[in-house]
């Protein structure tokens, strides 16, 4: 019902897939996955918490049910046995494993996600040949791949992430914070950072429930979670999928505290969604999100351009969608 690739050209990854296993039933099953290994360079607790939160947001984005979500945890871990020469940081890796398990407990209990199954791939280590006949011990970053499955009560209410109609309003739900530790942006610049995104289930969950109701009430035209890469990346993907432009104003983004423009664009704070809404549903939508962090940050445009204004009103980004798509697809070469 919702395929892994969506949009007018059927080439942008959906938040989650939806299947209808019983052909004669209107019910569906949403399925998603999340993987954030770079966060473990800061703390495997938050790596795990963010993976759970992302997988949950992914199924909610397509029309899943917060109260019927199951999870599967797949551990991909390096050897945790300490050895002074062969594995000198083994104790740290073991501590990261403990931290990850604590996050699984804390976040799954808070969100009410039973863990249906899981798999452990330990000893993800290897020795790679070096240039001068030496060998390098390489250990995988401590990683959890988290999968979520959710019931969809009626597939007729499913949404996709592609923006649909020019003139629709663009809302950012959830709070953007100075959380770029382990982010894609820092990775491009050669940094790790320290302020890794944190999951606040008690604060996030009411917003998720509110969005679930808004989707079921057909108030939303498109829904996209904000994941790795931040607002800039996921807004661009929603625009590319819809074949329509976006005009966004960073001054309207709900922030915890004043933040530099580049941090607003690329922060990977958890708990956020990008939603488009028909202008005649504005009142109903804003009433539904009264009391929640929800900022109307822009509009869907006919012109196929990504235009972003900075927090002080100065032009920041003005790019053609074609150029964005070419850049985005380049790493795939001729594979697809």
């Amino acid at each position: 019902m919702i395929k892994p690739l969506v949009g007018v050209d059927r080439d942008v990854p959906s938040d989650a897939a939806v299947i209808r296993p019983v052909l004669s039933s209107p019910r569906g099953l949403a399925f998603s996955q999340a993987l954030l290994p770079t966060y473990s360079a800061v703390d495997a607790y938050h790596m795990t918490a963010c993976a759970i939160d992302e997988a949950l947001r992914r199924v909610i984005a397509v029309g899943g049910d917060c109260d019927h979500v199951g999870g599967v945890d797949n551990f991909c871990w390096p050897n945790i046995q300490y050895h002074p020469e062969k594995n000198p940081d083994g104790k740290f890796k073991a501590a990261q494993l403990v931290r990850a398990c604590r996050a699984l407990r804390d976040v799954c209990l808070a969100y009410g996600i039973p863990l249906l199954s899981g798999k452990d791939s330990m000893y993800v280590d290897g020795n790679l040949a070096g240039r001068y006949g030496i060998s390098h011990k390489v250990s995988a970053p401590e990683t959890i791949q988290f999968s979520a499955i959710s019931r969809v009560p009626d597939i007729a209410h499913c949404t996709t992430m592609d923006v649909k109609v020019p003139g629709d309003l663009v809302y950012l739900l959830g709070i953007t914070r100075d959380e770029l530790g382990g982010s894609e942006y820092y990775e491009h610049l050669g940094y790790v950072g320290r302020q890794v995104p944190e999951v606040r289930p008690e604060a996030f969950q009411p917003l998720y429930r509110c969005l679930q109701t808004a989707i079921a009430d057909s108030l939303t035209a498109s829904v996209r979670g904000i994941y790795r890469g931040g607002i800039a990346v996921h807004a661009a993907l929603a625009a590319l999928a819809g074949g329509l432009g976006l005009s966004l104003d960073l001054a309207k983004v709900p922030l915890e505290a004043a933040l530099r423009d580049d941090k607003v664009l690329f922060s990977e704070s958890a708990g956020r969604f990008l939603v488009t809404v028909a202008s005649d549903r504005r009142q109903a939508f804003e009433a539904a999100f009264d009391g929640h962090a929800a900022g109307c940050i822009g509009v869907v445009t006919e012109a196929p351009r990504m235009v972003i204004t900075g927090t002080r009103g100065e032009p920041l980004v003005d790019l053609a969608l074609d150029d964005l798509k070419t850049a985005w697809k380049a790493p795939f070469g001729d594979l697809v």
Partner: protein
Amino acid sequence: MTGKIRALVLTGFGLNCDLETAYALELAGAEAVRVHINALIDGDARLDDYQILAFGGGFSWGDDHGAGVLQAVRLRTNVGDQLRAFVESQRLVIGICNGFQTLVNLGLLPGFDGDYQTRSVALTFNDCGNFRDDWVTLKIDTRSPCVFTKGLDVIDLPIRHGEGKFVTAPEVIARLEAHHQIAARYARPNGAPAEGAFPHNPNGSLGDIAGICDPTGRVFGLMPHPEGFNHWSNHPLWTRQAEARQRTGQPAMPEGPTPGIQIFRNAVACLRG
């Protein structure tokens, strides 16, 4: 014909679309029974008891020796006479994807001059070099005798195949064209001919050929999967269409059957007469 129209949907040996195909036939008003190929060969099931025979999609015998080749050999060797008697008794046969490949290997298509044994067309490896899972637009030949495509013009259906390139000699194509046996061709989204352009023509088929029928129009084979469009939400753009419909005060999903189900309804309607 009175009573229920009974449809036999083959299963087994790597076929994997039988549940969906049977469901589509049921939606179209037929009574569909999934029958294992061996049950037909052993005589536990007889073609005489059915009015529609569906060769469905999948990877029969793992596509060994070419897609559909072994299924065709196995059926021709064991129930070839029953199959020909079925076709000659004015009943309906549909071959979808792997089923289409089987029909051409059996020689049930193109069926020139009542010859249902000669292989004269082939479905071979896609020009793009790999398996494709996508949706295509088809232009239906509205003058075709094909009973399955009656009333249809431009429709979207899913494809899932690695060997869908239709190849044959130029004189065979000319003959297929002359008798309007090319019931469905790959087209651009607006219905204009694909003219071989990828991905509209997804496999490099000569003449954009997606499906052909026999001269009577009662045997039909096609690479796209009509049973895969059994619900409006199967379409890749349905959320966009639903949003547009709702903004003009219409329900999210249209009334009436999908084009995929209409193909099976046409078959049932033809048999009801």
